[in-house]
C-alpha cells in the first residue's frame, strides 16, 4: 500500500513540476535573478505548495499513526540549526544558482530527454556518493 501511495504521489509531484514550469531551469534562473528582469513564478509555486501541504501536515502531526499504513507517525522533529545544515544548504544554493536545476526538476528534465539534465543528474548522484565517503 505504501508503495502504491508513493508511486501515485510521485506522479502528482512530477505533474506539479511540469505544470508549474519549474522543470525549466531558465524560469528558475529568472526567479533567482533579482537584479534583472524578475520572474516571480517560483514564489507562487512555493506559496501554492505550502498552502495545500500545510493542512495535510498539520493533520499528520496530530496523528499517532499514519492514516493508511497505520505505522508510528515519525515526521522529523529536530530543531537543531548546525553547521552541516547551513553549509550544505549554501553549497546547494550555489549549485542551484549556477545551473538553475534542483534535484526534482533535474530528474524530470532528464526523463524528458534533455541531455544537459542527464549530465547534471550524473554529477549530482556523484556528489551524493562523495558525501557517503566524506567524514560527517
Amino acid at each position, binding site marked *: 500500500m505504501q508503495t502504491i501511495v508513493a508511486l501515485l504521489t510521485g506522479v502528482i509531484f512530477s505533474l506539479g513540476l511540469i505544470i508549474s514550469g519549474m522543470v525549466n531551469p531558465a524560469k528558475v534562473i529568472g526567479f533567482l535573478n533579482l537584479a534583472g528582469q524578475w520572474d516571480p513564478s517560483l514564489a507562487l509555486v512555493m506559496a501554492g505548495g505550502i498552502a495545500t501541504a500545510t493542512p495535510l501536515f498539520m493533520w499528520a502531526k496530530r496523528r499517532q499513526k499514519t492514516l493508511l499504513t497505520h505505522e508510528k507517525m515519525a515526521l522529523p522533529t529536530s*530543531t537543531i540549526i548546525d553547521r552541516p545544515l547551513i553549509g550544505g544548504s549554501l553549497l546547494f544554493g550555489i549549485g542551484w544558482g549556477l545551473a*538553475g536545476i534542483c534535484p526534482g526538476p533535474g530528474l524530470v528534465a532528464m526523463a524528458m530527454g534533455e541531455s544537459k539534465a542527464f549530465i547534471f543528474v550524473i554529477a549530482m548522484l556523484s556528489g551524493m556518493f562523495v*558525501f557517503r565517503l566524506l567524514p560527517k
Partner: protein
Amino acid sequence: MQIDWLQFTPWSALLGGALIGLASGLLALLTGKIAGISGILGGLLNAQSDMQWRAAFLLGLILTPLFWMAFKTPADIQITANTPTLIIAGLLVGLGTRYGNGCTSGHGICGLSRFSIRSLAAVASFMNAGFITVLLTHHLF
C-alpha cells in the same frame, strides 16, 4: 527590481505548486514519509532498508514526463549552462543537499509546511546563495 511580465506565469505556477504540495502532504499523512527528492535519492544510494517506497516515488516522478510527452507537447526546457558548469553545479547540489539534509522539496515545501525552524534556516541559506550566485554570474562576470 523589474517584473518580467512576459515570463511570469502566476496561474500555472500556483496550480503546479498546489499539486506538489498535495503530493507531499498526502505522502506524509498516509505513510509518514517526506517527499524530499534529495533525501529519497540519498536513501536509495545508501541502500537503506525502506527502498521500496523510494523507488516507487522516483518511478512515478520519472515515468510521468514520458506519458506527458506521449500526449502533450514537451515542456519548455532551456538550460543555458555549459557542460563544466553543469558538472560543478550537479556536484554542489548532490553534496550540499546531503550535508544540508534536504532541497527545495524536503526543506522548501515539506519543512516550511510543518513550520520547521531548521528548514526555514536551510531555505534562507540556499535561496540567498542562489540569489548571490546569479547576481555574480549574470551581472558581475
